């Protein structure tokens, strides 16, 4: 095999030229690629092709609020930076702050988490709930798409071989109630067995918005708009009667792979907990 070339560009423009010419694999934090390619102590990890290291490109870092109130997160922003930012939606901060442990959160990037397209990746789940988009750039132009469309399936994305994710944009939105859970084997450095986000807006006793998404439960993050619609428009006093219909519709999105009954039951319990809190008139804010 020809030796792997490695490029260390100083600017985004250089990086995009390298993507165009060599289709080199982007390496951001490296926390997926370096482990996947690991050959043991003292040996350079193996990569499937040439590599372009984008870790420290200033254009890909940072979090800012845009004029329309949406929030743009640079692709190489780390989980620690996201977890610490007041600008970022609390569900996304929750997910970022529960990734790995301190050191991992200082390396892992949001672009890498989405780019890796693992169903066990924690960031896409709340991002899909919030209808967030990725901004993709090449030397020739820019396009945007929903994170939900960008991630096609496990390890499969819509990235073209000359593009980079340059940022993630989360539209402005607020809910009266939110809920987040990550279930792993231990608190630190645990890959998710299951994650769930839910969000709702209750106005004058009516559910005007309801969303839920679960991670690590199938080939990609699951959100079921058909199920969500069952609850939207209902009075909170009606939630008890339509809860079962909703939960049955949700059952369909948990894929029948390893431990489906565990994931189904746990998801059901978490969703029931959230809906019951709404039905009981839980004060605005986070449902624990």
């Amino acid at each position: 095999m020809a030796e792997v070339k490695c490029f260390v560009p100083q600017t985004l423009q250089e990086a995009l030229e390298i993507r165009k010419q060599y289709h080199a694999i982007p390496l951001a934090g490296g926390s997926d690629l370096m482990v996947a390619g690991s050959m043991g102590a003292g040996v350079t990890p193996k990569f499937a092709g040439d590599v372009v290291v984008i870790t420290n490109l200033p254009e890909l870092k940072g979090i800012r609020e845009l004029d329309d109130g949406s929030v743009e997160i640079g692709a190489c922003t780390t989980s620690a930076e996201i977890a610490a930012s007041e600008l970022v939606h609390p569900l996304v901060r929750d997910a970022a702050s529960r990734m790995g442990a301190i050191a991992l959160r200082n390396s892992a990037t949001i672009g890498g988490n989405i780019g890796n397209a693992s169903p066990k990746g924690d960031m896409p789940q709340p991002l899909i709930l919030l209808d967030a988009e990725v901004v993709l750039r090449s030397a020739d132009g820019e396009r945007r798409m929903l994170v939900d469309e960008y991630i096609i399936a496990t390890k499969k994305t819509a990235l073209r071989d000359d593009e980079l994710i340059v940022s993630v944009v989360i539209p402005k939105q607020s809910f009266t109630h939110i809920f987040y859970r990550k279930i792993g084997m231990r608190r630190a450095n645990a890959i998710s067995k299951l994650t769930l986000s839910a969000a709702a807006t209750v106005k004058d006793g009516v559910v005007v918005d309801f969303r839920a998404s679960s991670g690590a439960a199938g080939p990609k993050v699951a959100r079921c708009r058909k199920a969500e619609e069952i609850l939207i428009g209902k009075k909170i006093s009606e939630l008890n009667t339509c809860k079962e219909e909703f939960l049955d519709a949700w059952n369909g999105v948990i894929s029948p792979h390893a431990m489906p009954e565990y994931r189904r039951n746990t998801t059901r319990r978490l969703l029931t907990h959230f809906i019951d809190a709404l039905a009981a008139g839980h004060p605005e804010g986070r449902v624990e």
Partner: protein
Amino acid sequence: MFSEIRFTLNGEQKIYTGDPLRRLIDVLRDDYGLTGSKEGCGEGECGACSIIKDGKLVTSCIIPVAGVNGCELLTIEGIRDTEKGKCIIDAYAEGGAVQCGFCIPGMVMATYVLLNNNPDPSEEEIRVGISGNICRCTGYDLIVECIALAAKKGAALWQK
């Protein structure tokens, strides 16, 4: 196109011209002779290889050397003779935090970052601060106590 990788290592400017995809831990240990950082798992799980990059704790086994281009790095060798480093190491010795010692350089680095950011941590905050560092000997309790001791004895150091 082989770029030079420039970084500051324990205060010294370095220009690295080898393979940019080598793991940082290998470059630290094999090229610069800094063998204080240990390799436990090689997968980012155990924290034995922890170093400080631009003030932040990272595991050097999952970072390619190219990923620290333009950065400031501190390893255990860079802090052990400083006042803060000595404060931690003396507290670990005084309270008996160390058994085989393999995890300790990483623990000390995690402690250094923790106390720099939070001079007076609660027990829970200490446990979270070292939650990415695995120790197979001590059961952690003495390490946690020694970190509290370092916070107390070095209060004047960490406050500034």
